[in-house]
């Protein structure tokens, strides 16, 4: 980390220190004071505004969390400077025109450790809201946590900008007015992946699903089935595996005799690393079944996980939200600024978090306030470009971003240890769109957390 930033941040935090002492007084004594300014939760009063970055710092997703945090620090740096990175390519000029900060306030941030547990994530989010005065909570690396924190932010009256969360429920049956998601979901993965699978593997496939036994896994399994079965693919079996099973051998051996010629691993994180590594060890990919090469598909990829799986991931199809090797200007600008600061390319988690921070700050700038309902209205049906995913819309009816989806493949001959995925196809946004009612749920009204 550069010394310059530290000095910057230190002076910023001096103000912040004073602000947080004031906030530490139990709120029912200070409420009167708050009401005089703007009437919403944690309305910033001084020259700064606080963002809350809630990422996994311990546990299985700690590396992803660390990458998210790096992206947030970078985003804050760019917002406060009024430019840099993807902020320069972003289609909305509001922040650039403001010339640094949001609504005339410098952005500072507080961090929390979600531990990838709903309870812990809610507790750290509450701390940032109740104690540190955060106007927005963002980050996270799993859907359970995202949904739990989203619910909390709705109750507390702050905006939640989801980090990496892929489950349909986040903007489906668990959607909330105060919550927004930039990342894609299992529905889009299914829609994007199916045509590519058909082109590469044909229409006559017998599929065996291994599915992590929790909500996201079921939802992923469902959408792959939904989009491949009309193509002629047939599900032989869908087996649920315990989360964190470690050794998957007892689930892999039955595949050998099942007559299946395709294995779909609806796993993420460590489960994905382990099941993929072990499935390849079992020689599945060397097999010929029904006169076809046996293939494996991993619907949701992340570069960090591919790194963990090593050679096993080579040539295996999957989908991802973004990849640093994209050649559009925005992606290049982001990789450039991130790479210069940290020395390696950003992950998709870092990208989505950076984008969320910029999108939120921009919406606040355009709204002229941090009041959730007004900021939310700015985000709803907001069309933008220049954040690495092409033209994108934040759909108002479910607060889900719609953008192109990347179908990727594990790279056969990586040139560096970061060059692990190659983009096979960019599925256009039109192909992955679905009506908001499909996934159910109610946004409900905005909550500003006012007295």
């Amino acid at each position: 980390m550069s010394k310059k930033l530290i000095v910057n941040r230190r002076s910023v935090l001096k103000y912040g220190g004073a602000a947080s002492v004031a906030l530490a007084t139990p709120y029912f004594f200070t409420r009167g004071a708050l009401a005089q300014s703007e009437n919403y939760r944690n309305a910033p009063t001084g020259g700064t505004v606080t963002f809350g970055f809630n990422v996994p710092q311990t546990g299985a997703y700690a590396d992803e969390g660390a990458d998210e945090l790096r992206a947030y620090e970078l985003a804050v740096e760019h917002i406060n400077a009024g430019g840099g990175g993807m902020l320069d390519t972003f289609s909305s000029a509001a922040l650039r025109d403001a010339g640094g900060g949001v609504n005339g306030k410098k952005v500072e941030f507080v961090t929390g450790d979600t531990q990838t547990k709903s309870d812990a994530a809610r507790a750290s989010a509450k701390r940032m809201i109740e104690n540190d005065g955060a106007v927005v909570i963002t980050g996270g690396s799993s859907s359970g946590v995202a949904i739990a924190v989203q619910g909390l932010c709705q109750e507390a009256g702050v905006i939640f900008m989801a980090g990496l969360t892929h489950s349909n429920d986040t903007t489906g049956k668990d959607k909330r007015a105060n919550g927004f998601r930039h990342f894609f979901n299992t529905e889009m993965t299914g829609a994007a992946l199916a045509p590519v699978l058909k082109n590469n593997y044909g229409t006559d496939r017998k599929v065996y699903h291994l599915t992590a036994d929790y909500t996201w896994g079921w939802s992923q399994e469902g959408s792959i089935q939904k989009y491949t079965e009309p193509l002629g693919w047939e599900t032989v079996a869908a087996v649920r595996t315990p989360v964190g099973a470690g050794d998957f051998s007892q689930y892999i051996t039955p595949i050998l005799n099942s007559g299946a010629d395709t294995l779909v691993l609806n796993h993420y994180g460590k489960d994905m690393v382990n099941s993929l590594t072990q499935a390849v060890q079992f020689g599945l990919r060397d097999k010929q079944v029904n006169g076809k090469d046996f293939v494996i598909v991993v619907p949701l990829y992340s570069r960090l996980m591919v790194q963990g799986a090593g050679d096993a991931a080579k040539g295996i199809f999957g989908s991802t939200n973004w990849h640093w090797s994209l050649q559009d200007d925005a992606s290049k600008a982001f990789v450039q600024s991130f790479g210069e600061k940290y020395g390696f390319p950003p992950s998709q988690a870092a990208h989505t978090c950076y984008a969320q921070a910029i999108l939120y700050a921009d919406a606040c700038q355009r709204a002229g306030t941090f009041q959730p309902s007004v900021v939310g209205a700015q985000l709803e049906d907001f069309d933008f470009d220049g954040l690495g995913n092409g033209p994108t819309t934040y759909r108002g009816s479910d607060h889900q971003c719609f953008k192109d989806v990347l179908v990727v493949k594990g790279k056969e001959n990586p040139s560096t240890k970061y060059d692990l995925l190659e983009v096979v196809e960019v599925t256009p946004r039109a192909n992955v769109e679905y009506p908001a009612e499909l996934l159910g749920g109610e946004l409900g009204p905005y909550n500003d957390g006012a007295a």
Partner: protein
Amino acid sequence: MDAIFLQILNGLDKGGAYALIALGLTLVFGTLGVVNFAHGALFMLGAFCAVTLHRILNISFERVSETQKDFLGNPLKEQVPYLQEWFGPQVSEFLLDWSVPISILLAIIVMGIIGVVMERGLIKHFYKRPHADQILVTFGLAIILQEIVRHYFGANPIPQSAPDVFAGAANVGNWVGLGDNVIYPWWRLVYFMFSALVIFGVFAFLQFTTFGMVVRAGMQDRETVGLLGINIQRRFTVVFGLAAAVAGVAGAMYTPILPPDYHMGMDFLVLSFVVVVVGGMGSLAGAVLAGFMLGILQSFASMNEVKSILPGIDQIIIYLVAVIVLLTLPRGLMGRKGVMED
């Protein structure tokens, strides 16, 4: 038929791993009477011995490539291992290929030293302390060890590959006349043989050497052995080192199956305790028996046919078996009276 045969193989393979991980734990229980919550961390450290060796063998200098570019578009700085520079590509390739088996040697030495230092520096002061204190101190140590590993290696799993000759699967079906669909990964077969060998080695060591005899006597009755003027203390230090080394090699050899990360020790901790307790506290044979039993039962409980009758059974089978065994056999399969009952 094929399916059952494969699940038995799975069970044996798992059982070998469970037994190997639990072996050191039960040894420490039986001899020192210490509840070692850091045992999982020792397993994890062993796995990282393999990672470290691979990294050491890969220590490289940079050479600017004329043709390739890095992700920022600058000329790529190629990493050339010193090993390759010194011994040529063939030796270097061979060593890197075989780094996991070779790391056993490193694991034995490093883990043995860690075990002895741990026993002398910490555990020995806790022999007479209540089990709760032992749990707290070793748990604290486990956290520290894993945080140190995380600091240097990150939280992400780090893949390790088995030597090329053991890559892929063996056609076990052909050996036993069951057709082509019965295949099993070479490395898992190797791991099974390896665990059998280590378990046998530890047994032989305790059974046929005078050192082992004294240790076994000490397990039976520590005070009497002490009265005979034998320095049982020093031997127990060695036993702890041995337990650590066994956990270490178990971890190192497991890396191609399960890419190691800093948290893997905690993931195995509960499991290894269940194995030890089901086997009977302080009984080596019990731990091995329980390991195989739980491994095989877990494999069968995971079969689709079983799961369709009892949904979720594969998630709880280990604990269910533990409950049943402990309620029917008060001290586990082969436990001795009076060990760890207060």
